[in-house]
Each structure stands twice: as C-alpha cells, then as structure tokens.
C-alpha cells in the first residue's frame, strides 16, 4: 500500500486537508467571500485579498470518491437528470450540492459567491459551473485559455494575463475588498517553493527500487489544489521530500522486491488506491510515477522544473496554465512521457482509459502505439473511471496488467 498514509507526511496531510475544509466552512460563516474554482485557476490571486477563500469542487469530488461515496453521489445527480456519460467529478459534485452536501465527508463546500472556471483543463468544467451559475444565480467568470499544442506563445500569455486582471477587478467589485499585489506575489513565491519540493519528492521514484509509489503522489497532490500559495503547503512539501529522501537513504521501499517499474497515464483511480497498490505489490510491481502528478511544477512537454526568471507573478501564473498534463496535446504529452520513461527506468506503461475525461483519454490509443512501437516499451490499456467505481472491473483490469507484466518478462528474456 502507498506508504505515506502511515508516515508523518501522511498524518500531516490528513490534518492539513481536514483543517482546510473545516476552516473554509468557518470562514464562510464569518463572512469571507467564497470562490469555487477549477483546479488550475491561479488561486494565488485570492491571497491578494483580505478575506477571499476558495474551494475546489474537483478536489472535493476526488475526496468523496476516495472515501467510497462517489457512486451514491453520482446516482443522485443522475436522478436529477444528469447523464451517466458526464464526468464523474461533476456528477459527484452536483449530486452532493443539490442535496445540501449529503454524503460528503466534509458536509460539502461552503456556498460560493463567485464561480471561476477555465477551459484549459477541460471545457466541460465551464458547463458544469454554469449549472450552479443558473440554479443559484451566482456570477460565473470563465477564463479562456487557448489550448497549446506547442509551447505557449507570448500573445496567449498576454491574453491570459489580461483576463487575470479582469478577474481581480471583478472580485474587487463583488467583494468590496481591495487587492494587494504584494500579497499575491508572496503567495506566488510560496507556490514556486512548493513545486520545487514537490519535484524533489517525485525524484525518489528514480531510485531502484523506487522510494515512492504513484499512489503516494496521488494522495499527496491534494493540497496543491486546495492550498496553493500558502507557506504551509511549501513547508509540507519540504518535509514530504525530506522524508522521501530519508526513506531512500534508509533503504525503506514501498515495494521492496520491485521487479516491474510502471508508469500510469490518466487521473488517479480514487476508489481503487488501496486495492490496486496492494495487489500490484503482491506481484512485485510498482506504479512508480504518473503523468497526472509528475506534470505539477513542470511546463509543457518537459519534466524539468519551471523557470520563471523575468516573468511577473501574473505572467508566471499565465505560463502555468499549461502546467498540468491534461492541457497537453498528443505531442507534448508524448515528449514528457518519453523523458519520464528514460529518467525513471520505466518497464511498462498502464494507460487508464477514462470515459469521464475526454481531454485526458482521447489520444491514448496513439500515445500507446507511440510508446509501444516507437519507444519499444510494453503497454496496456485498462478501463477505469477515476471516480465512478461502477465503470471499473478489478478482475478485467488485473488480467490485463498481469499480461503487461508477462510482456515485460518476455521483452527482458529477449534482451
């Protein structure tokens, strides 16, 4: 099982996350201006205000799925008429918030004063937030982020920056609070620090055997979404990275007899973290890294840390609109995967085809061919919805993953 649940970092993470959700509820009750955001919205901007807090529905949906309430919440949304084909994060969220936070481990999220979405992770998200915009009559600010098939162009960065400036003005008007750019810059620095430590943490996967599992990174990425821009996040990731390095130094490995080093492509299977990692460990297999988490703190098509020299905080935030893997196209994602395979000594790739997430999944067939045929690395594709456990069959998935391990053995035999 992913080890960081039991470690100091695991315990600290639970505390941070729980406190984060609870603090938000209290602050909202005390009159804070509440924003709901899509995951890549630059939340450092909110730190420039005295009393603006934010919640991340996607992250909350992941939490619900991880705690086993994804399916009942999806069903609630479906009963309200939302199609089963819509992203399960959205269904969980709608099922939860149109039922007053029912079933959520946190009691839901404090009701927003403003919704801020963007179309770079996915366009679907803007449609999802539009549902609340209409039902609750709450303003919805959409950030239009041109998709980059290649590195971001300066004109795109400038366009994004002008929208950030618009967002700042909008919040000033709606909240009556004055924006302080110095506080935002400070938050931006904390984020930059946090990502450097995050990358140091991920480096533990380069060791053989790997010092971490991708499941650790799935669990530990949560505060990147909910606490960006805080010193607490930077400090947490510093300790997390230290701890990972110390464990490697002490030769403590999550899969001590690691025989197969795998790479995961797609969002985490939140409802399967424990089961999947345990079962893989029994096979001496470790999913040591994931496209979903190694992209944090890097730019398009590369695993190298972000470089922001000569960029203002708003420009830096505009650049990182391309920082996750989802907003990457086929070519950039393939490039980053190639680097990951080489740097981490990957033996095989698991493509998790996810019906919920078209942006992530609808290129995997070509990506798989590229990795398998051009890079010569064995691969497998399994069906996993990240949050709707009804769309996953453990047995079918493991039959395929075991076949992947066999092909790795076979390839080794031939080498």
């Amino acid at each position, binding site marked *: 099982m992913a080890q960081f649940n039991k470690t100091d970092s695991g315990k600290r993470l639970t505390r941070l996350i729980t406190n984060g959700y609870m603090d938000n509820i209290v602050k909202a009750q005390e009159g804070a201006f509440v924003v709901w955001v899509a995951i890549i919205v630059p939340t450092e901007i909110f730190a420039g205000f005295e009393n603006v807090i934010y919640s991340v529905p996607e992250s909350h949906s992941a939490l619900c799925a991880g705690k086993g309430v994804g399916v009942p919440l999806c069903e609630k949304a479906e009963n309200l008429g939302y*199609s089963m084909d819509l992203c399960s994060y959205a269904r969980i969220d709608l099922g939860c918030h149109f039922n007053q936070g029912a079933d959520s481990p946190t009691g839901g999220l404090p009701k927003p004063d403003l919704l801020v979405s963007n179309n770079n992770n996915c366009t679907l998200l803007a449609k999802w937030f539009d549902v609340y915009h209409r039902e609750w009559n709450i303003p919805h600010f959409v950030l239009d982020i041109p998709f980059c098939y290649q590195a971001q162009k300066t004109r795109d960065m400038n366009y994004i920056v002008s929208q950030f400036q*618009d967002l700042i003005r909008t919040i000033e008007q709606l909240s009556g609070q004055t924006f302080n750019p110095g506080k935002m810059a400070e938050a931006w620095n904390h984020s930059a620090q946090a990502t450097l430590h995050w990358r140091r943490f991920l480096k533990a996967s380069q060791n053989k055997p790997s010092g971490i599992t991708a499941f650790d990174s799935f669990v530990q990425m949560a505060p990147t979404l909910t606490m960006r821009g805080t010193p607490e996040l930077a400090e947490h990731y510093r300790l997390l990275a230290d701890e990972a390095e110390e464990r490697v130094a002490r030769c403590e490995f999550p899969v001590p007899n690691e025989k197969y080093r795998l790479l995961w492509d797609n969002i985490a299977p939140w409802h399967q973290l424990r089961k999947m990692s345990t079962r893989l460990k029994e096979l001496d297999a470790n999913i040591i890294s994931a496209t979903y988490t190694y992209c944090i703190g890097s730019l398009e098509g590369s695993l190298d840390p972000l470089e922001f020299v000569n960029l203002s905080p708003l420009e830096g935030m505009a650049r990182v609109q391309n920082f996750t893997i989802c907003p990457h196209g086929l070519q950039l994602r393939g490039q980053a995967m190639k680097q990951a395979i080489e740097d981490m000594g990957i033996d095989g790739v698991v493509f998790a085809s996810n019906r919920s997430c078209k942006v992530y999944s609808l290129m995997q067939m070509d990506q798989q061919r590229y990795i398998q045929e051009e890079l010569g690395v064995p691969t497998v594709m399994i069906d996993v919805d990240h949050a709707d456990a009804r769309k996953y069959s453990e047995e079918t998935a493991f039959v395929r993953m075991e076949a992947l391990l066999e092909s790795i053995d076979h390839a080794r035999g031939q080498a």
Partner: protein
Amino acid sequence: MNAIQNQLEALHSQGNKVLGCFPLYPPLELIHSMGIVPVILWGFKPFFSQVPLADRHVQNYACSVGRYLMEFVLQDKGKSLDGLLMYNACDTLRNLPEIIQKGLGEETVLPLHSFHIPALSMDRSGAKEYLHDRLDELIAWLETTFSAKFSLESFQHSVNLYGQLRQLMLKCQALAGEGKALFSEYAALCETLNFMPLEAQIPALEKFCAQKEANKPAPCNARVLMSGILPPLREVLEILESAGLRIVANDIASMHRAWAYTPAFADDPAAYYADLYENHFPCTTLLPTADRRLAALESLLENSQARAWIFAGEKFCEHEYFELPYVEKALKARGISTLNLEFSLGDEQNLGAMKTRIEAFAEIMND
C-alpha cells in the same frame, strides 16, 4: 466512394480549393472571400455504418460527430480536401487535430490550422484584440496555404452572399413551420448543401422555397420544437412526421443556431466576427451565449406555437447534456411536453425502440 465524397471530388475536379472545417461555426465568409470553398465536416452518418479507421485512434466514448469526421478524413486521405481548419469547441474536438495528423501519417500532407474563438464575451478585456490577432493569423495561413489573397471587397461580397443564404435558410424553416414543407425534406436539403459551393447553395434554396411556397399548409396540432447538435437521421424524422408530429421550429446547431443571426458588414473581419460570435443564436458549444439560451428557446416556442420540445441528444456531448436538466425543468414548468432521444453511432439498428417511444409521445400530444 460515398455521396459526400462524390460531391467533394466534383468540387475538386472543377478546380476549387476545398477546406474541411469543424465544428459548425468557422469564419465561412472569410474563407469564401479568399476563393476557398469551406465545407463543414458533418452529416456523414448515413454513409458510414462503421468507423474502423477512427476506431484505431479514439475510444468509442467519443461522440459520433467526432468519430464520423475522423473516419471521413482518414478515408479520404486528402483526396478531396486541400486543408483542414478546426476551432476550439469541446474536449473531444480539441484532441482531434493531432490525432488526425497521426492517422494520416507522413505520406499524406493535409495542411491543418487550429483557430481559437475567445470563449468569453467580447466585452471582456482583451477578447476582441485576441480574436483580431487569431484572424490575422488565419488569413496569413490561408494566403500561404492556398496562394490566396484577402481583400475587403471580396469579403464584403461574401458577407452579402452569406446574408442571403441565412435569410433563405430561415425562410425554408418557416415553410416547414407553416406545414408547406416537411422538416425532413429541409434537413435532407441542408445535408447536400453543405458540400456545395455557396454559389450553388443559394439557387438550390431558392428553388426549394419556390416549390414549397405554393403548397397548401397541412393542418397539425402536434407542433414541436427540436433541439440538438445535428438533425436526427432522415428515417427518424420520417417516423416523427408519420406519427403526426410537425417540427415547426428548431434549435439545432447545424441549422437554426447556425443561421439565425446575421451580422452587418464591418470593414474589418475582426469586428464582423466579434459581432457574429457575441450575438450568435445561443449554442451549447459557445460558452458566452449560454445565459441567453433559455430565453431564446422560449421565444422560439412562442413564435412557432410549439407545444412540445424534443431533445435530439448526441451521446457523449457534454455541452448538450449539462444543459438538458435545466432546460427540461424550465420548459416543463411552462407546460411544454418534452421527449429525450439519444443518438449515437449505429442508430439505424435501433430504430424500432425509438419508433415506439415517438409514437407514444405523439399519441399523448394528439390527445
């Protein structure tokens, strides 16, 4: 070779440069003004019962619109198209340019350009300037790729022609609403027009209007409004019509949504398109128009005196399905009956069940 490929090949052999566009609202006037024939890559359903080439590249949970268009482009291999133009609309389409290029392989050179329409109101800071910039880039790409030249005079001419086309489209719809034409006939006409040059589309529409105008309006009580991305297969429309339902108005993306708004000519394409996209008839795929959608539907219902709403859902289209519960609830609250139909690849094999549902719905309406 299917009928669409025949039509496109004919266009080609007449010396036209053909630009395949997706999805539905590319800057048609601009492309046309540069001597290029824009064709929107939809309407392939009747021609492909299976999509083996697309299936090699995308999972079966991509919408059929995306899968059909891929199948067409990959089968065609640049035989009848001289280039591809796509713009940002949805998460499925966003991935297609690179996948199509992979699928075509290195031996097929089919120039492809990705255009970005700001997904926000043109009043937001930077939106108009950004659109301007992207249009300049598009013009430069068209000039280089097709050895064409942009001129304001030609643009104005094309804007006028498209203005005529839009008016004729609305007239055809009105004739269907009055019961002088069948909606299925009009939809079939639209399907063929899409693969013709504009200069042939206009007379074809005029002919249709002239033929139908003289008809006596057929009486009908069961007046319905139909929404969706594309009209359903002709067989389904015929089932609806034989069940006594008359589609008197539509909010279909490839039809009414595409043609309902005509911007005035502006001597700057960026100003023209800022107006078009800002004031476009609301479409689930144009984010900034979402707030106007319900009111637009209500006025369509009122003007056409439709008593029911049929949602022709494109399976896996998030843009449509996120809005469905809200629209349905609001319309029901106004006493409008609703029917949800879902369409995907291979529908023609399941028409029986659909027929039963449609007939049951028609019976209730006719009671």
